[in-house]
């Protein structure tokens, strides 16, 4: 079809959807909508991972991002009762500035990446590096130490989150009284 392979079609469609959903994340007024669009963006990105033969990563991505992180976001939004477009908007001028700066950045980066287009992936569908077996071998062989560190980091984040989120009424009340 039009000289493009199925993979290229898939890439184009997924890329378009990812960009559209990404824009919707930024522009939707309701935070809940934003979250949902972000989840869709993540699905598109997972599709890209599949296209890149990173099957395991795609699954993990959906599980971690769409399944855990975004649920956490939703949860917090619900908790704060922000489910409305009550958000005060920025002035038009600052939005325009943001857009202009973003456009400039895009232009500049694209300019910088000129000539790197020949780095296109040529061999689709033959790689096995995304398989769990290969990934696991690398992860637990070369990257064992960072892996352990990450586990410590997660533990620390867990404890930290609990500590921060704990309802510490006493010190706060005292400091308010002072």
């Amino acid at each position: 079809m039009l000289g493009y392979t199925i993979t290229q079609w898939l890439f184009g469609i997924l890329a378009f959807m990812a960009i559209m959903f990404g824009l919707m994340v930024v522009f939707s007024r309701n935070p809940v909508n934003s979250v949902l669009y972000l989840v869709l963006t993540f699905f598109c990105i997972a599709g890209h991972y599949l296209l890149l033969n990173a099957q395991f990563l795609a699954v993990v991505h959906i599980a971690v991002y769409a399944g855990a992180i975004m649920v956490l976001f939703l949860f917090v939004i619900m908790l704060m009762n922000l489910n409305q477009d009550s958000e005060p908007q920025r002035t038009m001028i600052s939005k325009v500035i943001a857009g202009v700066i973003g456009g400039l950045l895009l232009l500049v980066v694209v300019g910088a990446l000129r000539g790197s287009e020949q780095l296109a992936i040529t061999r689709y569908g033959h790689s096995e590096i995304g398989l769990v077996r290969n990934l696991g071998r690398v992860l637990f062989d070369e990257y064992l130490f960072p892996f352990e560190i990450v586990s410590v980091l997660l533990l620390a984040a867990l404890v930290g989150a609990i500590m921060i989120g704990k309802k510490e009424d006493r010190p706060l009340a005292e400091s308010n009284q002072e």
Partner: protein
Amino acid sequence: MYMMLSVILFIIGAVGVMARRNTIILFMCIELMLNAVNLLLVAFSRLHEDSSGQVFVFFIMAVAAAEVAVGLAILSMIYRNVKNIDTDHLGNLKN
């Protein structure tokens, strides 16, 4: 092509951070930027036939998860105290 895609996603995220005032949405934009980078890493991993890129993505996911957990905890904490998560209202450190 993937490079272009991730650059565009990244810049969408950046513009979002600049243009929005809701801290939660700011967080989501940051996630978007992180994912743009992840995508690029996977693409390069594929290009060079090297698993290291994908392993990095794992690590980034883990760090992002930690960041989101702590960040949202702080956020809910702030919300509990000032009943607001508007970035314009969170300038108290300045004074």
